Every structure is written in structure tokens, then in C-alpha cells.
């Protein structure tokens, strides 16, 4: 059952991404060679992102290979999964503390959506530091991440028997699937729709033109308040 659902879900997401790319993704503004830069992510934020990405990737690879053959995760892969999972757990909490405030929904998010910012990246519809899609991804990741972590922690307590733990493991598996779909979309937007975002994970800096194209409201606030993102 899980095999079918996850295969359909992943394929559907990939198809949706391809459709979006064909319809709108290739029309993004050309922002290459921007020499005027500004800080978007400080060191702490980059480390948190690295931890959560690294943890999720390792946990996903080790977890899905067992889930797809409907066998319990055992052996060395179980240990590896636990290491990556522990990294993901901590980074998830850090991410919640670091970015929760910046992902609060605001009035301009609805305007961004109504103006077609999600489907017409070339339109340059103004957005805050994080646009609506970024915020939706963040809260989805928080909910799905918690839903993936909490059942496993509960299964380690002497509360549930094998049948109950099996249910918790199912919740864990489906939450992981939801997280994977969200991450696929997030990676597509970051690397394709808003190309240039990948470098921020390394340097923390983005081009000003890129920032004005995708997050104009944020640029105004930073310049106005001379905020150090840090």
C-alpha cells in the first residue's frame, strides 16, 4: 500500500513540477552576474539549513529504501537512519526557533498570490523576506517534521505494544513522504524558479537585483532599517 501511495505521490509531484516549469519556470528573470550583493543568511542560519538538509537527506535515503520493500529497517541502515534522524530532529527545532518569526503570514502574501507571483516569476511581484510559497513550505515542513519525529519517540516508551508501534511507524512513514514532497517542491523553486538561491547556502549573500526581483518588500525593509540579517 505504502509503495503504491508513495510512488504515485512522488510521480505526481514531479509531473506538477514539470508542468510548472514548462508553463512558468523558464520565464524567470535573468539575474546572472549581479555584483551588488546583500546578506540574506548568516552563519547560524546556514548551519541550521545544512543540518536539516543533511539530516533529512540521509534519513530519507535510508528510510525509504526499507519502506519501499515493506521490510523493517534493521541492520547497519537502522543505525545510520538514527544518526541522520537525530541530526534532523535537532536542526528542525533550531529551524523553528530561527525562522518561525520570519515566516508569519502577512497581508502582502495574499496580494502576492493574487498577483500571480507563484506562477509568474517574471512578473516581479513584491514579496517579503520569504514569499508565500516559502512560508507554506516552512510550516508544512514543521508539521510534517514533527509528525515524523514524535511517533518514533513515542514508540521508544513502554506505552504501545507492537500493533500500536506499527501504527506509529506508519504515521512516521507517511509524514516522511509528505516532507519529501514538500522538499522536492522547495528545491525546485530554490534552484530553478528562483535560480541564484543555491549560492546563498554557501556564502549567505544574494544579488540585490535578485533580491529586488523576488523579495522586494524585504529589500526595502532591510535598506530602510539597515537590518543586519546575521
Amino acid at each position: 500500500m505504502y509503495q503504491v501511495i508513495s510512488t504515485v505521490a512522488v510521480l505526481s509531484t514531479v509531473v506538477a513540477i514539470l508542468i510548472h516549469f514548462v508553463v512558468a519556470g523558464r520565464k524567470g528573470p535573468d539575474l546572472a552576474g549581479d555584483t551588488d550583493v546583500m546578506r540574506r543568511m548568516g552563519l547560524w542560519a546556514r548551519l541550521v539549513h545544512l543540518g536539516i538538509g543533511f539530516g533529512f537527506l540521509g534519513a530519507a535515503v535510508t528510510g525509504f529504501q526499507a519502506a519501499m520493500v515493506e521490510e523493517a529497517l534493521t541492520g547497519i541502515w537502522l543505525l545510520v537512519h538514527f544518526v541522520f534522524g537525530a541530526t534532523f530532529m535537532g536542526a528542525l527545532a533550531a529551524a523553528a526557533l530561527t525562522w518561525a518569526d520570519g515566516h508569519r503570514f502577512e497581508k502582502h502574501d495574499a496580494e502576492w498570490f493574487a498577483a500571480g507571483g507563484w506562477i509568474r516569476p517574471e512578473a516581479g511581484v513584491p514579496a517579503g523576506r520569504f514569499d508565500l510559497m516559502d512560508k507554506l513550505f516552512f510550516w508544512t515542513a514543521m508539521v510534517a517534521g514533527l509528525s515524523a519525529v514524535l511517533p518514533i519517540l513515542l514508540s521508544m516508551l513502554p506505552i504501545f505494544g507492537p500493533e500500536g508501534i506499527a501504527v506509529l511507524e506508519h504515521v512516521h512513514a507517511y509524514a516522511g513522504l509528505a516532507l519529501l514532497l514538500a522538499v522536492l517542491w522547495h528545491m525546485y523553486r530554490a534552484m530553478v524558479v528562483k535560480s541564484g538561491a543555491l549560492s546563498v547556502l554557501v556564502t549567505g549573500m544574494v544579488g540585490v537585483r535578485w533580491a529586488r526581483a523576488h523579495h522586494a518588500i524585504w529589500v526595502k525593509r532591510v535598506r530602510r532599517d539597515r537590518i543586519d540579517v546575521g
Partner: protein
Amino acid sequence: MGTTGSFRAGLAARLCVGILAVLAVSAGAVIVAGAAPALNVQVDGSRAKAVHRIDPYGHVNPFPDEDPVDGKPLKPAKIDPNAKPVMPVSMKNTCGQCHDYDKIRAGWHFNAANPGATAGRPGEPWILYDGKTGTQAPLSYRKWTGTFRPEQFGVSRWRRTMWFGGHSTGGGVSEPDVAHDEDLAIHSRWTASGALDINCLGCHSADPKHDQSVWAMQVSQQNFLGAAAAAADLITIHGAVAKADEAFDPFAARDDYNPGPTVSYNPGRIDAAGKMFFNVGKPSSDRCYYCHSDRYVGPDVPEQAAHADEDVHLAAGMECIDCHRNEIGHKISRGVQGEGHETLTCRGCHLGVEGEGAAGLPGRLGAPRPKHAGLPPVHMKKLSCTACHSGPWPGKQAYRVQTSRSHRMGAKGVYRGEDSPPYIAAPVFRRQDNGVIAPHKMLWPSYWGRLRKGQVVPIGPKEVVAMAEYELETAGKVADKLDEAGRPVKGLNEQQIIATLKKIASVDRKALADAKADAKATGDPEVAIESKGEPVYISGGWLHSLDAADVLTSREHDAAKPYGWALAHGVRPAGRALGSSSSRGCRDCHSADAPFCFGEAIAEGPAVIGTPTTVRMHELQGLNGAYLKSLALSFEGRVMFKVYGFVAAGVVAVVLIVYGFFGLAGLLRRNRPAA
């Protein structure tokens, strides 16, 4: 027509009527015979014990001097205590009057040698032990991998009955068959002893005076015909067939030409009407215990095993037959999943069986439903119930265990010390053929053989003695090694083994040369005459042989692998199961020193050569030791991991709740009507 014609017509009519009448009577006889009632029908369903005050019947000669005149099988005669000779009562022919003996003999206890019998999960073998030759071999008529057919070691059906019959039920190979060549072998004394039929009372006697050790003693004296009745205290046997001449006929009167044991019925056993009272009922656990007891010996055995805490089911008032049931076919439920009787397995009673309707509901016989709180479901698939719940609490090394059938427990007059062979180790946690890890009893075979084309062909003890008795008795000294307790270690030593291997090789070479010479003399081609193979000795998990310089070398070989059979009893209480919260929890198995993974089993045998094989439990489970140690390490920090995880999850949850409220507040503000 006239008078003559009328007479002929009347005669013809009378003949026709007569013929029809004969045909009618014959048909009636056939119909009546065919309508004989079926055997063993408990028609009324009453749970009250049936009182067996019935006619006793004697045995039928399996080797009559003459074939029956009418071609029909001989019928058993009713017992007459005044007849000459007085015959012992036969369980087969007495019980068989109402209970279908042929159906019963197809049951598990009796059908090992039946060609079509299912082998089932490997069980306890008959262990052939011969100290002189250092032989310790698991024998079975069933196709259990790792066991040998008795005839491979020169154990005929007669010898099997003699050597192992004391702890057997009778029947099976103990009922001789003229069609079976083995039963006609010169050493077989069936014509003197008679058949050792199934001893129904061995299980079904409710008489507290029933003594199975008497059965064992009578079998050892070849008093097969009377062994069952003597054990039931129905008769007294005076003398022994073992001391009688081979020509002794138990069915003929005793006189100077036919001296042998006699039988008398104990007072009050046969009433005035010639009937005998058999105190029968459902088998009590005591009946089973005679053949199915075990005890763990050695200094490290946990207290519970040394003082024989009973299985928790029995301590709760159950009997063996509450779980191990059968119908007339005696296909006793063994509690093994996949062998039928699923509702009578551990899971069947405690957890229920889907698809079995009401019979498959959990809680049968009051079985508590376990919560197994905190146990990941993978354990229910990879481990048997017995892995956590059965046998003694595992130690650093598997213990030595003695069993009824291997060590003649319960039989009087048999010396049995803690170090008595054969050497069986338990519990040994190994992976079964179905992939499930379960505790086993394990035996490493020791025997002489010939290695030919990669296979080892066993040599029976008698044949070894015939070839190399002198070498076995005189070569070298008895090993003067001492064990940890300072006692002399007994067993074959290296010098004896070298000398015996050399002697076997010498005998084989001579036999080969003689065979070739004979073939040449008679003109037959020599090409078909081949060497029997290289003499070897299997022991302690190794194959020992002589190299070109006659130095004893040891190597691994499949023939030296141990044979194991699953153990299920005694079941410990829930609070004493591996991993139960009252002990160290998960760390009972998931720790760097856990006996379940890192315990050792030593390949003990009747020889003292070098270092016996030591195998770790995880090797028998097919698991990597380094991985298990890593997993165990993760359990050291499990509590901290849980704290860390719940704190992290708590932070995320709090953030979600707080910002959820913020979002809700924002929505409410937006939707508030303008003042």
C-alpha cells in the same frame, strides 16, 4: 410331458429356489459383515471418563510357524489366567477392540519410520553414545538435516528397540515386519521377544502405581510382550527373554525344550467374569515427563533451572495435553506454527489467529493477552515467542543439559552424574530454516567415518571396535587433563585417535587389496573396486585426519556441524522474559555483553583433542558482531536520546502552537467588522 417331465420341472424349480436362497444368505452375511461398527467413536460427547472394565486380549505371534489355514490374519485370544502358557495382556489387541490401532500408529510418536510421514520441524533425536569409540551421533528415521539414519551406524530396528525402547512408546520400528530385511537379521531376536507394540498405558494410565521405569527394565530384558502390562502393575514377569535361548517361543508352553520367562497376573486384576479394569484417563503431565524431562547441570546454571522451576503453564494448573492435543490419529499438536493446530500455538492462545473464527480468538484457556509494551513489531517477526520466554535465563555460555531420552532419566539403576554424556548445550539461540531466531538444544556429533568425494560416510561403533579395539584400549594414556574443578577430563585422546585412524586405513587397504586379488582371480574387472575413502574422526566441530606424515590435522567440514532442535519449555513467567521491564529492559539483548548475541556454545564431545570449537550466538543467527556492538552502544545513550528528542519535538510543537495562535489572532483581527 408325463410324470418324468413334471418331476424334472419340479427339480429345476427347487434347484433355482435353493440357489437363490444360498445367494440371499451370502448377501446377507456380506451386508452384516460390512455393517460392523467403526472403531473409537465417542458418540455421546460425555466428558465423564469411560470406565474400562473390559475383556483383556493377548498378543498374536508375528512369526507363526505355519500360515493360517483360511488365509486370514490370526485373531487375538482372550486372556485366560489358567492357560499354558499364561500370556501377558496386549494393549494393541485389547485397546484395539474399540480404538483403531492402525490410525493411532500413524501418529507422531509412532510414525518416524513410515515412508510417507511428515518430518516436521527438527526435534530431539535418539543419541547414540559409545564411550569406547568416542561416538556421539544424533539418529532419526525422520529426514531432519544433521541427523543420521540409525542403519548408517549399524543400529538395526532390533538394536534401536533394545537401546532406546526404554524411553519410547513402543510401536513403529519396534513392531517387526517379515517383509523388512533388517528384522530378519541374525542378531534380531524378535521370534523370542515378540513385538514391542504401542504401550497405550504409557500415556493413558491414570493409575498412580503405573511405573514407566518398569517398562524400561522389562524392555532391557527383552520382555517385550509383557513390558506394558508389567509397567501397569497388571502382571509379574518371572525371568527374562534376554537369558533365554534364541529358539525360545513365547507363544508355546514352557518346558525343558522351551525354557523361558513366565507371567502371572497380580491378584484382583482379572475379575470373576474374566474382565480386567484398566484405569485410563487423559494423560497427566507425569506421563509425559518420563520421556520429556530435562535438567540443566553445571556450576553456572541459574537457580531456577537447577531447582527445576516448573513451566509457568504447569505451575498455573494446566496439563501438557491442554496444549498438546490430538484426535484418534494421534497427530499431537507440537505448538509449532505452520504444522496445523494454529490455535494451540503460543500466538494462537495468547494473540489469536485470524480466519479461525471463534476458535481463533485470543485468551484460550484463560491465556493472558500480552501487551509487549515498547516492543517494536520487528521482534514479533524475527524472534520466536520462546526466544524471550523459554528455557533458563541465558548465561555467558550455553549450559549443559540432560534429557530423559538421552540420559535415561527416570530409569532406575542408571548412573547419571552432572558430567554424564552425551553432551548437549542449551540454550543456543540460532536462526531456524524459516528465518526466525529461537532457542535450541545443540549437539556436536562425534564419530568415525570415511571421507570420500567430499562426503563423510559414518562407521558404526561395532565396526570400529572390530577393526581397532586394541588401539582404542591401549594407545597412549587416558588424558590427564583436568577441568576447572580439578576433575580428570575423560575421553579419547590424540594418541588413541591417531592409532585408530592408522588401523582403519590399514584394514581398508588390506580389504581393497584382497578384493582386487579376488576380482583378478575370478576374472572380474577391477575397475569397479574403489577405496572406501580416507579414515577421519569427527569431533568437537572439527574433522580430524592424518596427513602424509601421520600427523593429526583438523579442519572444518559440514559433517562436523552441530545438530540443533528447538526448545520450548520451561516457559518463564512474563516478568522473567528477556526484555521485560523488571529486568534491564531492551539491554537484556542489546548490550555488548548480552548472552543472547554474544554468549558462547562450546562443541563438547567424547574426545579431548586440542581446543574444541567455540561458536558465538550471533554467528548462529547470521548477524554481524560489529553491527550488534554498535547497536548495543546506541542503547547506552537511549535515555539521553529520548530526552533530546522530546525537547526538540517540544520546541517545534511550542512554535507551532504559539504562531498558530498568532495566525488565528491575525485572522480574527482582519475579519473584525469596522467600528
